[in-house]
């Protein structure tokens, strides 16, 4: 079984516009950037958090601190997976206590990754608050979790996957909906 591109949902320019709007919303909601830090969830949340941070610097003149969060050891499906997913590392080089943490990820789907991220975050410190920013919310939540900042709401079927591609990792900025194709015998 392979995945085949079905439709492109966002181009690089559209993605950039979404990120800009999300950055403005972060400033608006937090009444500035006082105490705001960005934490990207490995893997594609990391470059997205960096980009939002740069946009925030452009708009407000302050570059908020950024960290990387690896949620692998907190996943709830480790005992269902073989081989084990590999660690990419957590790097949050500042104290989270009292900060307003904006968690950044590419796609919000079941909510299980965010659940794991919240546990991972709480083991690192005690933030004043945690907000969630995602580039795509594709629905089908399995846990009571919602995003505070959404780039694009995208109704999908569970047979599809949403692929966010970022220049830093994939060579281009694009969002695609892909679907399963049964291989010919």
């Amino acid at each position, binding site marked *: 079984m392979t995945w085949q591109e079905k439709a492109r949902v966002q181009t690089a320019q559209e993605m950039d516009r979404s990120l800009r709007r999300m950055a403005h919303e972060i400033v608006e909601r937090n009444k500035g950037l006082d105490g705001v830090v960005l934490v990207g969830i490995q893997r594609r949340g990391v470059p997205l958090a960096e980009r939002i941070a740069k946009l925030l610097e452009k708009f407000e003149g302050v570059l908020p601190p950024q960290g990387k969060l*690896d949620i*692998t*050891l*907190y996943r709830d499906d*480790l*005992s*269902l*997976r*073989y*081989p*084990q997913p*590999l*660690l*990419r*590392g*957590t*790097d949050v080089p500042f104290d989270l206590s009292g900060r307003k943490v904006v968690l950044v990820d590419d796609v919000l789907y079941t909510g299980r990754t965010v659940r794991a991220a919240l*546990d991972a975050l709480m*083991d*690192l410190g005690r933030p004043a608050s945690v907000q969630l920013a995602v580039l795509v919310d594709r629905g089908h939540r399995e846990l009571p979790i919602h995003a505070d900042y959404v780039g694009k709401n995208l109704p999908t079927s569970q047979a599809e996957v949403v692929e966010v591609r970022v220049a830093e990792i994939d060579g281009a900025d694009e969002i695609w909906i892909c679907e399963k194709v049964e291989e010919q015998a």
Partner: protein
Amino acid sequence: MSWMHRHLLDVDALSRPEMELLLDQAVHMEDLLDRPIKKVPALRGKLVVNLFFEPSTRTRVSFELAEKFLGADVVNWAASGSSTSKGETLRDTAWTLEAMGADAVVVRHGMPGVPWYLREKLRKASVFNAGDGAHAHPTQALLDVYTVWKHCNRSLDGLRVAIVGDVLHSRVVRSDVQAFRLLGAEVVLAGPRTLMPLETDALGAVYEPDPVKAVEGADVVYLLRIQKERALEGLYPTDDEYHRRWGADEELMARAKKGAFVMHPGPINRGVEIASAVADGPNSLILDQVRSGVAVRMALLYLCMGGMEA
């Protein structure tokens, strides 16, 4: 590249890319050791039994910490005072552990081959060799190469490692030679002829009778523990004489490369195989090895203990 092993019995089961993957994962595990909360839920609900038929403090504690930091439930099964002293066979012990629901067994035994036997008898539990006789001690080797790899910009290619001491009775040396060579280092063995196996070539290392020549130009000088009862067996005359001829003091270390690392699997005998000035000196990695051991064992347990049957 993904990790497909469920057990670790000996270093030779691993390819170079697999070993490098494990070392890379250990780096992330070591990060955890610096946090106020070191415990993660990766092995929550898994039961690990530490089955030690020989006394061991550091290896057992290191495994135990690794298991606990990963959130596993841990049972320490020591041979003394257990059913073994009442005559239970190893096979029955294995089945008993499995009946109790062990997901992994970490075994140390005086007889070589016991971990292989257990793997055969256990239906589903992972088996980790924590030292079998004078045969193998793979996790010690992994933590040793990891410690050097970390300090040498993640590459052991072309390094010269001199291992000095009681090679004959050492399970550490067999695994270490394999691990260092797999990652591209060259290994020289030194020590009294009476403490050297006849076929050092079969280990894949060169025997150099003169300790000064052995450490000449070495990047790493690795001292093996001298068990004092060997003197009583007549294998070397006295501790003092051993120290003068084979012990690592500042004079011997001066023959190695400038800044050469000093390592030892512990526990150390000060004034026998190693002088205090060397053990406590700026190039000693001995305590770093201890810390690395926890990280490497965490990486190994994590990678091997996936829940799905392969």
